[in-house]
């Protein structure tokens, strides 16, 4: 009788600890708590239009964060994604203003994003420097280039490229969010069911061992950066289509939010481990908190504060659960 009871509590404990070890679960809980709280204060929250609005707003960040997850899991960092996104959007906008079709403009813009990201990756490989540092150096290169080609002017293209941003599937679901979902499914499949995904994990976990297991570490690193560039390019196109203008400051701060979403979702900064689902929920949490603060009429400046607080909380949870693992579960 008592043994059965302890057995049951033991079982519950193992399930709870197993879930608690998945950080996405924790993020989900916070997400629900914040949503329910906001809804109780302002019932507009759970209206379809509001939900769709949130989803639409997180789509661009979500796509960039998906790329950041790939890089973090592979042991890399790219903090130039914001600048890269800005540059890519500027390229697209300028080409459209020059009269090129939006397809051509987007294609070239995406190519520019991939190229820019390859510069980050290649310099890291070539100089054997951490990509964190090379991407830091690249920020000013990308921003400077964007300033130069735009002449420091806003590039507005109102009404000329709205297909992506304004289309609603069945009249309700924003196309940008669909694109975001497709990206997430693709990245999920890539990370967990393809050889390339295994390489991402192996290289992130122990690059020396990966090399000795016959993996071409450098070539793969470039591939990871190219994929990240592709995602940044796609995000840039969505952004441009939604907003209708671009400038050299477009995308500023995006890198922090993208890496932050990945970390909130459970990506380990030292590489080798991360969760795409977690990143998605992390980006969603950012969106929901921003939306809540709006609905609750809190000053927009607090959005940044709240982002930082959530990030710190997430890091706290990670280190707490790791410490617990190390000390062993007591009781």
């Amino acid at each position: 009788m008592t043994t059965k009871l302890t057995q049951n509590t033991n079982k519950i404990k193992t399930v709870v600890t197993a879930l608690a070890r998945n950080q996405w679960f924790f993020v989900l809980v916070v997400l629900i708590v914040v949503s329910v709280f906001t809804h109780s204060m302002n019932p507009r929250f759970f209206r379809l239009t509001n939900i769709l609005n949130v989803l639409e707003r997180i789509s661009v960040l979500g796509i960039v964060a998906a790329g950041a997850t790939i890089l973090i899991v592979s042991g890399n960092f790219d903090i130039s994604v914001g600048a890269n996104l800005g540059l890519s959007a500027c390229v697209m906008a300028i080409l459209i203003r020059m009269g090129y079709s939006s397809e051509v403009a987007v294609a070239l813009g995406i190519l520019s994003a991939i190229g820019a990201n390859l510069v980050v990756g290649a310099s890291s490989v070539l100089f054997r420097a951490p990509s964190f540092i090379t991407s830091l150096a690249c920020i000013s290169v990308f921003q400077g280039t964007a300033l130069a080609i735009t002449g420091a002017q806003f590039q507005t293209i109102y009404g000329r490229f709205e297909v992506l941003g304004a289309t609603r599937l069945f009249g309700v679901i924003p196309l940008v969010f669909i694109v975001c979902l497709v990206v997430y499914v693709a990245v999920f499949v890539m990370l967990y069911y393809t050889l390339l995904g295994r390489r991402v994990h192996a290289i992130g976990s122990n690059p020396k061992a990966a090399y000795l297991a016959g993996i071409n570490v450098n070539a793969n690193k470039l591939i990871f950066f190219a994929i990240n560039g592709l995602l940044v390019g796609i995000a840039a196109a969505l952004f441009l289509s939604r907003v209708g203008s671009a400038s050299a400051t477009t995308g500023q701060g995006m890198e922090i939010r993208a890496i932050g979403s990945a970390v909130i979702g459970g990506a380990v900064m030292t590489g080798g481990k991360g969760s795409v689902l977690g990143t998605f929920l992390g980006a969603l949490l950012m969106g929901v908190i921003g939306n809540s603060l709006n609905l609750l009429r809190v000053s927009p400046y607090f959005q940044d504060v709240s982002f930082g607080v959530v990030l710190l909380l997430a890091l706290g949870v990670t280190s707490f659960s790791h410490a617990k693992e190390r000390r062993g579960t007591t009781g």
Partner: protein
Amino acid sequence: MGEPSTTPSPLLQVHGVSKRFGQTEALNDVSLTLHGGEVLCIVGENGAGKSTLIKVLSGAIAPDAGSVQVGEAVYESLTPAEAMELGLATIYQEVELIDSLTVAANIFLGQEPTQRIPFLVDARVQNARAREILDTLHIDINERLLVEQLSAAQKQTLQIVKALHQESSILIMDEPTSSLGLEETRALMGLVRRLRERNLGIIYISHHLEEVFEIGDTVMILKDGRHVGTYPCGEVNSDFVVRKMVGRDASAFFSREPAPIGDVAFRADSVTWNGIVRDVSFDVRKGEVFGIGGLVGSGRSELASILYGAARPDTGRIVLGNRELSLRSPADAIEQGVCLVTEDRHVYGMFPERSIQENVAVVHNEFTPCRVVGTRSEAALADSMIDKLRIATFGRGQSIMNLSGGNQQKVMIARWLLDEYRLYIFDEPTKGVDVGAKQEIYALIVDAARNGKCVIMISSDMPELLSMSDRIGVMREGRMVRVFDNDSDLNEQELIRYFMGEEENNGDHEAHTEHQ
């Protein structure tokens, strides 16, 4: 905390400690008693719970039940700081020294002598005192060297010195000799003996029973997390210990089946690299196990990495089959049919965050045309290896970091058993592996040989080298100084003399020195 030197009361007692990780019962009601001046050896199979017990003592993990008693004080669990304060010093495998500081600075880390000017470290006093400490222990390390200049063995010794300097009364060592060569192991044994004379209590974990019988006073046997028994070393023999450990009769010595030996299939010609490998030539025939012995630092592992394409030789030729190999990377080598089980699995082998399945399948995935992974066939491959090598785990999804050391090694070997290769290079294949599993790994090596493959086995374990190899090449200072046919005339002492280069001095007499 009393005066342990005069009273016979124990230094340390562990009462009924249990610890569970998920489904694994790592420790189940384990107790021990340690007196001053005693060397207590803990033995057991891979995953028996030895390291877990040590982690309880060092404060790295908290037990689920039981207590630790140091002197009179009883603790339910310790923190690392408490353990240190109580005089429990643990020497981990991963060296915890600061590379960029000198030996002396490392010894005094955190308690630097600041004499004349406050806040300024007095390096002269520090060096002089460090010299004193090293001298009293008969340790020949220059106190002014930077730690990064030390060998693995010296670093290990330095950790012990540091622990002693902190006035520890109990020294705990988890497989201290697994990364040491012969000479270093001997030196460590000597040090342990001197420490015992100073009335320290020592807990010593090793898979090498000869070490246990050489320095141990008592031997404690763990099996599947349970305490099987504790015996005075003088009253038991190694067969008895092995039987208690493994639960069945298993000899500590391996007698391998011979494999038919064919033509020469692998040849290295004057391979030279970077002053570390010098003009090495040898060949390996099909079905042959070619052992390579030598001291740590003699260039054996570097030779292995050249043959595996991880380093490019400056000069020299490598021929496999009837083709000369020009390897640009390990990937090249694998494609040509060369594989390598690396010496240090933590640095060069494991993907610590990843599962057993991913760790086993990594090479296979990389070199099969299929780009889809995570399939049922991959899972089946992982499961078959878990069965075949009897890897102690609760599933292929368990992360490799949570396996015991020996089981991690088995995963490293499993990686190369999914496909066939032409040349198998094993660098210290049984590092950290228990007696039972050693036999299994030996059987796998012999299997490869019997299938007509070439095998190169680098080993610092003399019984292993002598019982497994058909021929033994001795490396010294980067050269392959001699290749022996492994017949009954060859013995350990003779080989060791070649390792050290003593044969030149008493060249003619070597056959006569039969006595120890």
